[in-house]
């Protein structure tokens, strides 16, 4: 892959710095609405990089700019060392894009979706056929090769979209909410496939509003909220920096949480009131539970767990990720 592209100054730059994507004060506006309000991002070769945030945080707008289909409003953006404003087709030739909603060609059957998409990249027919067969195997869709796209299940469509985004053997793969709408089993199949790509040396950029997905997949991530980056680091670093080791979850009767929050406020570093439960942040959850019972409070259900990125997000923004 590198032989043919090394002459290209953009690639030389990217190889030299090891940076696949560089953004400085990147902004995107739609009319008066500012979706991305000045973010700095560096994605390194070979890593899995995540954008974590709720719907409307500006993740998809950022991804579309990186995919070289959405002009930058202001700031600097380099993808594979190239400028998307002038080198769109050259950048896209080396990207794989898996958009948030499956944009499969419903008029084509499964294998033709791969084959013809490959042709859009100028890949010769024989290679397209070969890769289409390989990717069907990769996506566990070989027996569906001739099926209509509309007859596929949601998970199959998602796998096909991802397989399609690999037809040009991209160096950089963009996945916008890859597992939204999938059942738990299908998510795990997909994660496994993404790990295999990472091992093959593909750089992955993932957006998600699932904290477990971000924790599972990402080497490094940024937490986005309202068009800005709220924090940056590895999942472990973020949790260590912004949350406690454990969380005690307490569920009481309908409408009782607000009142009880005061009675347990001193038990942890912090207490969050959610509509259906209380979260007490502490380094020893079991100890908190014991004290709750000592005070004569009787929660309907309790749970002690490790802090997650969800808690980081709650801490940083005061809101839940999934609403």
């Amino acid at each position, binding site marked *: *892959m590198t*032989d*043919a*592209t090394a002459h*290209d100054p953009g690639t030389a730059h990217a190889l030299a710095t090891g940076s696949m994507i560089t953004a400085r004060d990147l902004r995107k506006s*739609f009319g008066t609405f500012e979706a991305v309000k000045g973010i700095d991002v560096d994605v390194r070769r070979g890593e899995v990089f995540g954008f974590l945030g709720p719907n409307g945080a500006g993740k998809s707008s950022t991804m579309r700019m990186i*995919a070289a*289909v*959405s*002009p930058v409003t202001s700031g600097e953006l380099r993808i594979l060392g190239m400028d998307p404003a002038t080198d*769109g*087709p*050259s950048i*896209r*030739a*080396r*990207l794989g*894009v898996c*958009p948030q*909603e499956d*944009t*499969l*060609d*419903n*008029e*084509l059957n499964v294998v*033709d979706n791969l084959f*013809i*998409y490959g*042709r*859009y*990249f*100028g*890949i010769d027919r024989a290679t397209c056929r070969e890769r289409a067969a390989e990717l069907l195997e990769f996506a566990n869709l070989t027996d569906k090769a001739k099926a209509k796209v509309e007859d596929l299940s949601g998970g199959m469509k998602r796998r096909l979209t991802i397989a399609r*985004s690999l037809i*040009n*053997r991209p160096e950089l793969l963009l996945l916008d909410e890859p597992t939204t709408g999938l059942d738990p089993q299908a998510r795990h199949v997909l994660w496994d496939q993404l790990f295999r790509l990472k091992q093959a040396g593909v750089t992955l950029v993932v957006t998600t509003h699932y904290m477990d997905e971000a924790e599972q997949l990402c080497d490094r991530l940024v937490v986005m909220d309202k068009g800005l980056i709220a924090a940056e680091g590895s999942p472990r670093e973020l949790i260590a920096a912004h949350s406690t080791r454990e969380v005690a979850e307490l569920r009481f009767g309908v409408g009782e949480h607000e009142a009880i929050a005061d009675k347990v406020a001193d038990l942890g570093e912090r207490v969050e009131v959610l509509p259906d439960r209380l979260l007490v942040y502490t380094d020893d959850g079991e100890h908190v539970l014991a004290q709750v019972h000592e005070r004569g409070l009787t929660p309907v259900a309790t749970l002690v767990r490790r802090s997650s990125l969800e808690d980081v997000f709650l801490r940083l923004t005061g809101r839940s990720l999934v609403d």
Partner: protein
Amino acid sequence: MSHTPLSPTGALSVITFRNYTTYKRHWKLFVTGFLEPVFYLLSIGIGVGALIDSFTFNGQQIPYAAFVAPGMLAASAFNGALMDSTFNVFFKLKYEKLYDQMLATPLTTADIARGEIVWGQLRGGVYSAAFLLVMLAMGLVHSWWAVLALPATLLIGFAFSAVCMGLTTYMTSFQDFDKITLAQLPMFLFSATFFPVDAFGDGVLRWVVEATPLYRGVVLCRELTTGAVTSASLVSVGYLVVMGLFGLWLVRRRLDRLLLT
């Protein structure tokens, strides 16, 4: 391993191949698509024509069918281009999100516009050629100039596809298509397709009709199949060329604005 971005012709052939692949299973639609103008020719040209005892065109008596046939030739190129560049493009743009997929690859909006228009013209060209053969078989072709009627229909198709595809990008829902009917039907019926432009008298109305694009296409085809070609025919050609180029510019601009946001 690196892929150089596609050349414009490479892109054109790939998009055409994609359309061909999806259209293969609709061969019945393809075959029957050519029937509509033939039905009109038989119904209006022959059936209604039997009620018209004498008909003069350009100072000479001709069968009414020979008058209607070139009108149908032009109108069918117009109708085909309109359907392709409105309904089909709207569906691909808004529902199938086909152009979004294509733009994730090295293809550009210019490639997409050219690809769609050329595809429509390939189909339209086959229909026009078939219709010309029907006219020939029915003895409705009166001049060797008729050979040029085929490129003339392609020109009509190009001009309308480009402009209509541009206008389609302004539509927001299928309900807007009623407005297309509002433009299409009067053009189809009043562009001297079924009766000479004299029917509008000598006033403003006639000048308005003569300034509409389908009228230019109809008279161009009629001049070619009846052999009444003059240097004035070039006005129609120039009109349609300019219209098509404007349409192409509009489509690119609009697709850039819609899809690259």
